[in-house]
């Protein structure tokens, strides 16, 4: 029954609980209006807009370099990939040829961002399920990556390291040694994640069979990224339409078929191993060359429509730019992975308990500014 009917129907036993917008497990300002019947959930209705800054309106008055900076504030955990999406779109519009060095460095840092985002996800998922220690272990490993970012471009999270035509700085001299050090460290620590959480029987009971998402539903709801791949739908943009240096790296696209919370969890854990393989294949042979292509100070795209999608840690981020030749684009639309993943939340959480809703939400890994834009 919709919210209105339940409110004025006398005999219904259901009552409403507001989960959010200020709530420990919504990771941001998302308000879920739960219709509860005792502990079981009959309807989940997300209310959005608490952090809506209308980035798309701002893009219509900004220059292209400034749009790249705006995407940092969308999915703040995969900043580099968001910037890369806009830069690739602008470079495609200008038909610019990008030096090989830039492509390889962009792919390495994208994979590092994916690793840091999955580490934070793992820590926060543990905290949501009650194992607070995993939060500290996740952040301890993530600290090494953010130090590398701080060394390369000066900012730890919202990096803005990409500019249309290449990179803002060249990588520092000790970049390769630091990344190798991190990989050696993390190859020892990742099995600890499994030991602490994955094989834990309490964790298994809490996640197996919870929040099933079939493959047809995943495609129809447009649930991309690790959450979609856990339902057996291989939607990895790095494989379908490789960009930057992904075509010269071989890596496995991890898909499971059960589509429950445990499958989504396992996809992300295995993806961390894959990201490390990718970095290891690229870190030793970064080609020489300049780190940015000369572009004009004021970039004017010709009158075209460009759509560029990129595989972020949460799914497919698409950038649609419709430019009419002026300094700033006529219309920019960001296809946010979070919006469609959230759309599928109701069908997964219906019938489960409140504790299941928390498990499902942490396995689809929502980042609210990415949804609200």
């Amino acid at each position, binding site marked *: 029954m*919709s919210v209105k009917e339940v409110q004025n129907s006398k005999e219904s036993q259901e009552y409403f609980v507001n989960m959010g917008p200020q709530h420990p497990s919504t990771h941001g300002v998302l308000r879920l209006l739960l219709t509860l019947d005792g502990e079981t959930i009959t309807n989940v209705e997300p209310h*959005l*807009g608490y952090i*809506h800054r*209308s980035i*798309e*309106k701002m893009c219509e*008055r*900004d220059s292209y370099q400034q749009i790249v900076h705006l995407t940092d504030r969308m999915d703040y955990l995969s900043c580099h990939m968001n910037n890369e999406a806009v830069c690739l779109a602008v470079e*495609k519009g200008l038909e610019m040829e990008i030096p090989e060095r830039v492509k390889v460095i962009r792919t390495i840092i994208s994979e590092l961002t994916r690793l840091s985002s999955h580490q934070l996800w793992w820590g926060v998922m543990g905290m949501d399920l009650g194992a607070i220690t995993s939060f500290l272990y996740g952040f301890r490993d993530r600290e090494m990556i953010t130090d590398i970012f701080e060394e390369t471009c000066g900012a730890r999270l919202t990096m803005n390291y990409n500019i249309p035509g290449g990179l803002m700085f060249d990588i520092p001299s000790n970049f390769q040694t630091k990344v190798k050090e991190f990989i050696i460290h993390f190859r020892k620590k990742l099995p600890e994640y499994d030991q602490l959480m994955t094989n834990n029987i309490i964790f298994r009971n809490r996640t197996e069979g919870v929040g099933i998402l079939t493959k047809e*539903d995943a*495609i*129809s*709801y*447009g649930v*991309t990224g690790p959450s979609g791949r856990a339902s057996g*739908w291989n*939607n990895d943009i790095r494989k*379908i339409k490789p960009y930057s240096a992904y075509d010269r790296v071989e890596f496995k696209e991890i898909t499971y078929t059960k589509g429950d919370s445990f499958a989504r969890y396992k996809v992300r854990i295995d993806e961390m191993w894959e990201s490390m393989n990718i970095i290891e294949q690229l870190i030793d042979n970064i080609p020489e060359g300049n780190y940015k292509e000369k572009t004009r100070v004021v970039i004017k795209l*010709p009158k*075209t*429509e*460009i*759509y560029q*999608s990129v595989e972020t840690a949460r799914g*497919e981020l*698409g950038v*649609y730019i*419709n430019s009419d030749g002026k300094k700033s684009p*006529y*219309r920019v*639309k960001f*296809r946010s992975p979070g*919006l*469609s993943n*959230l*759309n*599928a939340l109701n069908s997964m959480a219906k019938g489960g308990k409140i504790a299941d809703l928390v498990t499902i939400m942490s396995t689809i890994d929502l980042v609210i500014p990415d949804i*609200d834009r």
Partner: protein
Amino acid sequence: MTRQELQNKILSFPIETSFAETEVETQYLTTDVSAKNTHALISELKNNSDTYFDYLFCQTGIDFPEHMEVLFHLRSTTHLHEIVVRAKIDDRENPIIDSVYDLYKTAEYHEREIFDLFGVKFNNHPDLRRLFLDDDWEGYPLRKDYVDEINIVEL
């Protein structure tokens, strides 16, 4: 299927569509169609076995000076080809188009967002409300003629 086969396939459909000739080849094959028979074309594209566009990955609203547009970016997860369906809505004051929620469940939030920011009403949409802004917000922010002295900072 290559673009040319796709184009011929669509022309063979009973629905009246047109293909804009642009000097430089656009990234995806773009079909222009009027608002009335958008739903028919998209359901045909989805159910037809050789095209089988079963994944709507982006639905965008654009506001042009004299007409509105709703773009549907469709991709087939099996044949891995893409297409853009451009639905033109001529009436800018009260734009109405059919919702594709019955074909793609992801359209629910995309359409609510377009309604919220552009004011395009969608028929038989399950629950058409504003997605981000409050329900009593007047005006549609992403329209070009939207004016708001407080929030919009002209650089």
